[in-house]
């Protein structure tokens, strides 16, 4: 489907994306880092390989829809959109600065290309379900992708969508669970015991795949940092016009992925990098090799 050359290009875009995230948040003096970094490979795959979209025509009726339900990862989404050409990369500098289209949480009334507004957690999947039902009824052949977080999954409203969606046979709905193993604070756990962080997994002790499958979702588990797994899984979930089970892609990811000092650290959920840290991040992300 995709060759390794494609992956190296995507990997490069993802490194740039991570650099924009940590750099932009640092320049704004506030923002989220861990979640956008864990989601970046998935976002790059969606915006550069999987979704039918037209950056210069964000309202194109046949476009695939994307909703970032974990709205606090907004800077990750903005970065992927900017790299893809929805707006100039330069505009990332306005993030959180006032009079900006790039709000702390995605605001559809300000930035074209956003399908809804998110921020209060747990709501995006419901809106995606509405898109999917409406598309089926109107005979529109697009796929709706909704990215949710594993911490976010603790919200009750998501579970309403999780049990209602399969009843409507919305095969044109794909949920992507960015399962990075950490939430903002979470439950204490001995450092390193899970290999993915210094707090308990948000779903520790729960057989999440069995639960989601049991609710009627077509469950696919992938490594959310391996384009060789991400792209085929996302592509395979595209079922416009077909009725059947909605797909849940459980993507195992690492919070803060890509930079040594942010990986697996719950504190980096929302934290600003100091200048020496930025320099480490820049080197680790090989930025001198991929941008001017």
């Amino acid at each position, binding site marked *: 489907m995709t060759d390794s050359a494609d992956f190296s290009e995507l990997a490069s875009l993802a490194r740039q994306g991570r650099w924009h995230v940590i750099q932009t948040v640092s320049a704004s003096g506030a923002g989220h880092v861990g979640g956008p970094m864990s989601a970046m490979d998935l976002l790059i795959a969606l915006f550069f390989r999987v979704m039918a979209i037209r950056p210069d025509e964000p309202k194109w009726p046949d476009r695939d829809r994307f909703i970032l339900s974990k709205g606090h990862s907004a800077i990750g989404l903005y970065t992927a959109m900017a790299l893809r050409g929805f707006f100039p990369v330069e505009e990332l500098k306005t993030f959180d600065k006032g009079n900006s289209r790039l709000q702390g949480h995605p605001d559809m009334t300000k930035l074209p290309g956003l399908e809804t*507004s998110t921020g209060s957690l747990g*709501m995006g999947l419901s*809106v995606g*379900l509405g*898109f*999917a039902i409406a598309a089926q009824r109107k005979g529109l052949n697009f796929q709706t992708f909704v990215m949710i977080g594993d911490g976010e999954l603790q919200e009750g409203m998501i579970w*309403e*969508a999780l049990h*209602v969606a399969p009843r409507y046979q919305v095969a044109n709905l794909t949920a992507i669970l960015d399962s990075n193993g950490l939430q903002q604070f979470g439950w204490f756990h001995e450092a390193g015991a899970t290999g993915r962080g210094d707090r308990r997994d948000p779903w520790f002790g729960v057989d999440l795949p069995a639960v989601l499958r049991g609710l009627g979702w077509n469950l696919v588990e992938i490594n959310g940092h391996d384009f060789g797994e991400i792209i085929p899984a996302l592509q395979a979930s595209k079922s416009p016009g077909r009725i059947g089970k909605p797909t849940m892609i459980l993507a195992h990811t690492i919070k803060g992925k890509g930079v040594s000092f942010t990986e697996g650290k719950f504190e980096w959920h929302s934290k600003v990098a100091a200048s020496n840290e930025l320099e480490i991040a820049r080197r680790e992300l090989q930025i001198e090799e991929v941008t001017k």
Partner: protein
Amino acid sequence: MKALRDVFGDTLSELAQQNPSIVVLDADLANSTKADKFAQAHPDRFLEMGIAEQNMVGTAVGMAALGFVPWLSSFTVFFTHRAADPVRMLVAQTHANVKIGAAYSGLLTGYTGKTHQDVEDLAIMRAMPGMTVLAPADEFECAEMIRWATDYVGPVYLRLARDPNAAVFGPDYVFQPGAVHQLHEGSDLLMISTGTQSSRCVEAARELKKEGISAAVLHVPSIKPLRQEDLLSACEKFDLVFTVEEHSRLGGLGGLVTEILSEHSPRRVVRLGLQDEWGESAPNDFLLDKYRLSAQRVAEQIVSRRKQAR
């Protein structure tokens, strides 16, 4: 006399014959809210969403984005309290074209008790930027509001009553957002009311007349938007204004009227409604009497507060 919930089911069923965009989403209360009438008339456009109000609100937002006009069916409390967050963030903040049919509003909810009696909804909903908040007085106004709201592009909250009440308008009624309506002439004082309480206020004005008090009644169906100048001119010749609502005295109609008058045309305003208190399970007559909203009790309070005001 027709209950507003029946008007809801009937009017949507009728409108949907001409308008293919209308869909109704229900949170498992259709046989209470009378959305079941729509389900029967247009089964393919009725979406049962289960006992999951928050998801229902979100799904409606998604469908609205694709050109549907979703009307939601549930009890008032579940919109303004349980699903307040998605209503605020997904509907109000994005100005989504979603219509909230808030059934079983106020105190008269059929023996449910305080859990299901929403006497805070107007205060909550009118505080949300961009939200249109409507409280019809009777079947004629309710039907017109549903027609208007279906055509209007943007979020609408419609306050519906469970049980029938006396009509104050006729079949020729035309709804205009922001307009106020004089329901009873009078010269001694002005009662301002909203929703189905307005018909009880007209009755109260008749009671007062027997005692030689000439009370005018002004009905405010459109809590938001409201034509402020129309309200101000209606109040102009009265030194004493009463607000009367089947709602808390805090933040609803009483709040609205006092905010406007105190800023533009200060005069004495007495707010009648629920004190800072909860309701209870009881027959309607009992509730209207105990919580001082029957025509009789409204008239009594006006007589006594008028004496105090002198």
